[in-house]
């Protein structure tokens, strides 16, 4: 092998840089996020908790396509209460606090969904309230 002296240390440095986040965090994955469940609305969601954890993004995409593209605006009923399909119109009716619910896991997993570029959190919605 040519240039053994440079290639092997180079490779080692490369691997070290690549894995630096692991060393930086001391081989720990950090504290697990604890999203705050909504209060006073019961434990029931549109799907069982585990399923929601795993697939809420697929469900949101499915709702989005049904409502926007197929004009299927049928409603969902949870605990006897009817909701219109949608992030603002269904999910955030109970999960009113995006920071304490959505963000806790999203930040931990370092995912940045663009939902809130358009959709309003309840907090934002009241920040510019109609005044009449």
């Amino acid at each position, binding site marked *: 092998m040519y240039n053994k002296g440079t290639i092997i240390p180079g490779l080692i440095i490369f691997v070290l840089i690549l894995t630096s986040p692991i060393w930086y965090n001391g081989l720990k994955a950090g504290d697990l996020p604890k999203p705050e469940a909504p209060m006073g609305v019961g434990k029931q969601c549109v799907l069982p908790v585990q399923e929601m954890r795993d697939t809420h993004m697929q469900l949101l995409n499915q709702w989005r396509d049904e409502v*926007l*593209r197929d004009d299927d605006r049928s409603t969902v009923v949870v605990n006897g209460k009817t909701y219109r399909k949608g992030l*603002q119109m269904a999910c955030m009716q109970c999960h009113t606090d995006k920071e304490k619910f959505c963000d806790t896991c999203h930040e931990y997993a370092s995912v940045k969904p663009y939902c809130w570029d*358009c959709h*309003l959190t*309840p907090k*934002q919605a*009241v920040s*510019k309230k*109609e005044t009449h």
Partner: protein
Amino acid sequence: MDNQRRKFLKIAGISALAGIGAPALAKLTSTSAFAAAQEGHTAAAGAAHGATEQSGIQLGMVIDMRKFIEKPEMLDRAIAACARVHNVPEFPPEKKKSEIKWIWKTPFENAFTDQSQARLSTAVEHAQFPVLCNHCAEPACVKVCPTKATFKQKDNGIVAMDYHRCIGCRFCMAGCPYGARSFNWEDPRPYVKTYNPDFPTRMRGVVEKCNFCGERLALGLKPACVEACEGSGAMVFGDINDEKSEVRQVLAKEFTIQRNASAGTKPSVFYIV
């Protein structure tokens, strides 16, 4: 027997929905309306070569300018209602470049560029015409969109937008012969006056336009602009393919014109001037 049962169900369905308080629009949101629209249509004689009678529901609108000329402030109310319901931003004059328009007002010469501008009546010459997306039967914007982010809704003929899919190429803006489309050149939120918590805002980098209040129709409501002119008859909304609809009655009675009909996109907004 079957036929009768269907009729019964249809009537029952419509009256049930009517009971909720949406007599005029129930037809548009219930599935039975589709069947109704397909039944017994007598084809109107096509004015153009090869023109075919359209089938299926095509939501449309008749705008009676006589009413708006009488009460111009009604149009401002309609425009404000639309902006409020859809979180449409309002940019200050120095940011005119970034402006977003869903429904806005413009003089006759700008609204009807292919009509004669010569010797207009004083009232028309000074009138402000509402202009909006024409929800064309054959929209050019839908044809040119490379991602199907804008598309024709099958059940009601609305030209809809999927803001999640739009890549912001603005081909639809070049294609639309009505200038009905706006692009979010920057984040619109700082310029939204009041938020409607039931509706999202838009993000920068996508195209938007009038959606004929698809989200309100689903609730049995009329479009916001139509509602703002309620009772005046200035804006009549409904299925222009359904002979029995109110909008068709008006179309049958009055002479109407369309904007830029020569573009061949079959616009669904008609004007009584």
